[in-house]
């Protein structure tokens, strides 16, 4: 098939005015190895549009001081902007109260906060934690560390050959010792969208709280804390057009109040003597030390940007991209897609017969196509599908159908080189 034929088959991306959106992203104008950058590594980290970059610059040039402390003008401005960002996150998640929004350094930090704040207080010897095969290492390792410390056990929800969690098996894992369910909303390695709403309802029938890893969901479709009824939800700023070093943990106020602090330090206290410290109220109890103020405010601007485009339009466009990419890659002999769940976010994991993913990644880079290769910090997924690694293209709302064509053409070139 020639590029021309491929282009004729390419459906229009009607959901978004993508070319206008792309103009907002300076980095998308880059050339790599003499080719236009085709950035398809969005599940690892996304790019930042100019209005969000500008917000960071505005803060540093005219609003910066430490927050929650001094009475001077700059400190008051910074505090007001930081707390305004918290309210933006609250609205974005449809959380009931702004004190349910804790700023963290990222998803990993949020999960560790729950492992310490909830886990070390409420999980003991012979208690059980339910995780799934699809978890990122960041939602496995903190629980293993806790289980080792406390003598608790980890039970794992299996998946079928399409990469979908087996809900019947999930139901059988509950017993009187189950203390927590940890589940990813979207698999970073396969793209599977898990039925977290049903899983949360099942857990709640057993009185068990649920932590959802939302790192791969929050950037791609509307997530609603009231509709999900989850107890904890963690995500990262840098995967949704925000900066690195900032993330969010949502927690139901009832749980957050019962939990112990994670880190000790300034700002998380009401009073300190050498005999006794009284902790601050939530969310400040969990925000020890000077937080990443600039990053939090810039995340607020990223949320404004996403909302202005519209989460429904973003989801629809990314579905179009995934459907087209799936169809095109399926037409390539010798290429197999790993993860074929009925409900998927815009992640396409694949293996090329006879070519190791690292060779695929290096040769795609020659064509300017940036993808991720490796185990994607999800080694249990690789073991389940009996592959050492995969190549992963992951899409954002600023990607185009033409970029899917560039990906497919580059894969053909790899196959040609390897004969």
């Amino acid at each position, binding site marked *: 098939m020639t590029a021309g034929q491929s282009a004729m088959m390419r459906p229009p991306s009607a959901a978004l005015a993508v070319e206008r959106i792309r103009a907002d992203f300076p980095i998308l104008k880059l050339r*790599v190895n003499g080719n236009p950058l085709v950035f398809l590594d969005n599940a690892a980290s996304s790019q930042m549009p100019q209005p969000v970059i500008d917000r960071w610059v505005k803060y540093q040039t005219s609003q910066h001081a430490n927050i929650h402390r001094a009475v001077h003008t700059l400190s008051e401005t910074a505090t007001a902007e930081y707390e305004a960002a918290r309210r933006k996150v609250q609205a974005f998640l449809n959380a009931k109260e702004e004190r349910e929004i804790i700023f963290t350094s990222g998803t990993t930090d949020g999960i560790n906060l729950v492992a310490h704040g909830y886990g070390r207080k409420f999980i003991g010897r012979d208690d059980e934690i339910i995780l799934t095969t699809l978890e990122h290492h960041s939602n496995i390792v903190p629980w293993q560390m806790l289980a080792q410390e406390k003598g608790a056990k980890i039970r794992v929800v299996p998946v079928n050959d399409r990469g979908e969690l087996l809900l019947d098996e999930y139901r059988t894992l509950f017993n009187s010792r189950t203390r927590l369910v940890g589940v990813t909303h979207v698999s970073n390695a396969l793209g599977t969208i898990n039925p977290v709403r049903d899983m949360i309802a099942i857990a709640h029938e057993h009185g068990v709280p649920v932590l959802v890893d939302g790192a791969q969901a929050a950037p791609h479709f509307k997530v609603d804390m009231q509709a999900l009824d989850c107890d904890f939800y963690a995500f990262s700023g840098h995967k949704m057009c925000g900066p690195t070093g900032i993330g969010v943990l949502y927690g139901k106020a009832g749980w957050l109040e019962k939990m112990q602090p994670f880190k000790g330090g300034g700002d998380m206290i009401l009073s300190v003597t050498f005999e006794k410290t009284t902790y601050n109220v939530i969310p400040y109890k969990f925000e020890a030390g000077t937080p990443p103020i600039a990053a939090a405010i810039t995340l607020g601007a990223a949320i404004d940007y996403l909302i202005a485009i519209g989460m429904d339009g973003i989801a629809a466009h990314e579905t179009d991209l995934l459907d087209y990419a799936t169809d095109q890659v399926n037409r390539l002999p010798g290429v197999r897609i790993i993860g074929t769940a009925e409900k998927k976010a815009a992640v396409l994991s694949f293996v090329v017969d006879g070519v*190791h993913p*690292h060779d695929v990644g*290096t*040769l795609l880079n*020659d064509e300017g196509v940036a993808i991720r*290769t490796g185990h994607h910090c999800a080694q249990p997924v690789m073991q389940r599908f009996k592959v050492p690694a995969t190549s992963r293209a992951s899409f954002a709302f600023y990607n185009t159908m033409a970029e899917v064509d560039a990906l497919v053409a580059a894969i053909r070139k790899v196959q040609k*080189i390897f*004969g």
Partner: protein
Amino acid sequence: MADSKQLYQEVILDHNRKPRNWGVLADASHKAEGHNPLCGDHISLTLKLSGDVVDAINVQGESCAICKASASMMTTVVKGRKRADAEQMIREFRDMATGKLDLGTQRHHLGRLAVFAGVRDLPTRVKCAILPWHTLHAALNSVASTSTEAEADPMHAPIGGA
């Protein structure tokens, strides 16, 4: 960053397709496992020393083309050589891959292994090329298992160190 097609030359692709000395020696005197936890590459190396000569050497594993071809070509060049010569080549190969050895101006014994010189411009792939040599070094020194991430290992080549 250089165009990696300079690296994916026919000789490397050929050794990737048909790796030489591929397998496990039943009567090995030395062996080691090599891992690159960053990408999951894994190789097993077995060799037989007669006196101080590498009499036989086999490699087997699961890895990318760069690692596999490097392993295959390594077996063909060290087989029949003295142990000290093999150690010399290990050092030279590592120095070439990390950009410390300039093949144009400095003396070396690498011969056709020079096809791997281009890896120096691909920092994330340096370890793929070095892993077999790293593992050979471990086997010759009776270290059962080695990793590209073993900080204390003298063969350690940090990413971006090129």
